[in-house]
């Protein structure tokens, strides 16, 4: 970029032209006053004043003149100087004024122009002066020392001006380097068309600077971000936001952009800073995956410890019963009657049932998480099923009062085993967490739905834990107080989901819980596939 062109902007040159014409007009007026017998013809004087004024006026009217105003100014300066010497020559007059005028104009001009321009103009002036001195020898000593002094002064001014200019050039070069070296892509656009980009941006989108400039900025935005971008463009917000950008090869990638209004060469443009987020997003997602894996391992370890506890509990009476009977046979001393032996064996049998159920639950969870969970639909009576389950738990139920409200019968078409599992798990929970207070069970029939609901008045569930109770291995109570694998409600939810039903819970800490299961009267076989 040509930096001293900034000194020859139309504005500066117009100013100089006005001074030039003004000075010449003053001289003309003064000469006219002092020399009534002026031989300088009016037309020549009119001409040299009219020329700078005409250029001045034309620079406003014609863009060609405005663009090349420095050349026009140059021409008019030479013309004025020539006329100046010509007038001195033909009038044989004192040259103080014309020389002062000439030197002032030179000074002003040189102060803003380059070294060579000053050199050529000095050469031209000295040449003309020498020629004039040859014609009129008495003039010569007056102006040559002055001209030389002024030329020297001008050179000093030029030196400092150039040094200042150089600093500007360097600063600008530094800025451009920085502009290109920043990691962020930077784009300037005016009403959607790109007017400047830095190197990072060309790398981001994979297109050359030359092709980018003038292209619409929206070409580099992914289609799904159009709405967001247009919405944000309408608002004067400057906070950064995320969009998806598009490369030249069509690849989309996430970026964070910040937009700012900016005054660029006198125009209001939008400056966009773009940061590539794909690497950061990838890092975040990797970090998240790692954390999830860690959490899964922790959950598994916790589950194994709970599972071993749960399996050891029924193992204890089983082993003790075994040892008692073995001891009895070895000692040959029968402290137990046959009735008591039978009771011990029954206890053992119960433990085997408990262990089997635990293993079944674990296998169910494994099946669910692998997606191998098929419903075997059959016709049965839900009321009858509830009665059968209550029969099994009659011993526990006897300790608290259980009230059942149900229709006489409720024929359904569901997976019988799974439905039993749902009712059993909910009943067991009500018995464990019900604090031996009354339990209310209701079965209701609707046209297309069967609703089972169970209400206890026990410990209830904390509000914060309500959202987790249906998750795998989750328990809303301390493991110091309650055993269990934490699988019951998880299995309930999965079975109900597989039937395309719903399970809801309402609970208050300290006053009990109500679980409501809504199942279709007839599950559709198509509903067996579901996400675990």
């Amino acid at each position: 970029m040509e930096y001293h062109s900034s000194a020859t902007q139309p504005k500066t040159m117009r100013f100089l032209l006005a001074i030039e014409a003004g000075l010449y007009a003053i001289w003309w007026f003064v000469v006219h006053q002092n020399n009534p017998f002026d031989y300088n013809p009016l037309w020549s004087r009119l001409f040299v004043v009219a020329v700078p004024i005409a250029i001045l006026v034309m620079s406003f009217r014609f863009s060609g003149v405005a663009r090349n105003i420095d050349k026009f100014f140059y021409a008019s300066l030479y013309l004025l100087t020539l006329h100046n010497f010509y007038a001195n020559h033909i009038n044989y007059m004192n040259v103080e004024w014309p020389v002062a005028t000439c030197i002032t104009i030179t000074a002003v001009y040189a102060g803003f122009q380059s070294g060579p321009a000053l050199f050529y103009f000095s050469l031209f002036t000295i040449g003309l002066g020498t020629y004039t001195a040859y014609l009129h020898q008495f003039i010569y000593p007056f102006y040559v020392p002055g001209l030389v002094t002024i030329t020297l002064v001008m050179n000093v001014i030029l030196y400092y001006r150039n040094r200042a200019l150089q600093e500007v050039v360097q600063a600008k070069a530094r800025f451009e380097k920085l502009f290109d070296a920043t990691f962020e892509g930077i784009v300037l656009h005016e009403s959607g068309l790109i007017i400047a980009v830095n190197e990072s941006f060309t790398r981001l989108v994979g297109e050359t600077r030359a092709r980018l400039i003038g292209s619409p900025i929206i070409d580099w935005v992914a289609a799904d971000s159009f709405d967001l971008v247009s919405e944000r463009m309408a608002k004067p917000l400057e906070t950064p936001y995320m969009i998806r950008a598009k490369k030249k090869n069509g690849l989309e990638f996430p970026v964070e952009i910040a937009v700012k209004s900016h005054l660029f060469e006198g125009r209001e443009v939008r400056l966009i800073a773009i940061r590539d987020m794909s690497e950061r997003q990838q890092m975040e997602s990797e970090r998240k995956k790692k954390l999830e894996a860690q959490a899964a391992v922790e959950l598994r370890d916790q589950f194994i410890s709970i599972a071993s506890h749960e399996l050891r509990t029924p193992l204890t009476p089983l082993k003790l019963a075994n040892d008692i009977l073995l001891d009895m046979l070895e000692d040959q001393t029968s402290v137990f009657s046959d009735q008591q032996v039978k009771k011990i064996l029954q206890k053992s049998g119960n433990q085997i049932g408990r262990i089997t159920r635990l293993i079944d639950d674990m296998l169910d969870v494994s099946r669910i998480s692998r997606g191998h969970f098929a419903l075997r639909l059959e016709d049965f009576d839900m009321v009858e099923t509830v009665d059968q389950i209550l029969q099994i738990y009659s011993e526990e139920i006897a300790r608290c009062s259980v009230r059942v409200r149900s229709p006489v019968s409720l024929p359904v078409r569901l997976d019988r085993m799974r439905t039993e599992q749902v009712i059993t798990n909910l009943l067991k929970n009500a018995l464990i967490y019900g604090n031996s207070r009354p339990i209310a069970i209701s079965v209701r029939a609707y046209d297309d739905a069967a609703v089972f609901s169970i209400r206890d008045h026990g410990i209830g569930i904390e509000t914060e834990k309500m959202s987790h109770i249906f998750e795998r291995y989750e328990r809303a109570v301390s493991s110091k107080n309650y055993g269990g694998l934490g699988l019951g409600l998880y299995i309930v939810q999965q079975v109900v989901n597989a039937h395309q039903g719903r399970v809801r819970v309402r609970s208050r800490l300290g006053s009990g819980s109500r679980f409501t299961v809504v199942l279709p009267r007839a599950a559709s076989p198509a509903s067996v596939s579901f996400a675990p």
Partner: protein
Amino acid sequence: MMSKAEDSPYVLIIDDDEDIRDVLTMLFVAKGIKNISTAVNGEDGFQKLCTALMPHVVLLDLMMPVASGWDFLAKVQAFPELKIHRIAILSAGSPDRASLGNYPFFTKPPDIKELMNFVRPPTGA
């Protein structure tokens, strides 16, 4: 000569699992121990301490509703005037031993001989 109390100690079983309580009771009966009492949780167990005879031996489960084994131990330690001869912990878990003091620990299912040695130490030992 063994004292009568040591020959047939008074045993308190604190466990929330009914089957475990029943089978342990049967075991002790088979071994000739007559005085056996059971409790379903830590609070129930502590009530038994206060209202009945002081047991010689307490077999304590840890994970129980209402008041756990830890709760029971904390209460017992708060009343040093309670003269329980021996407390042992009988648990299926593997809890942090530091939280349990120096009480003997039996993992469920326990070895029957070791358990009996604790409940009724052999004479001359």
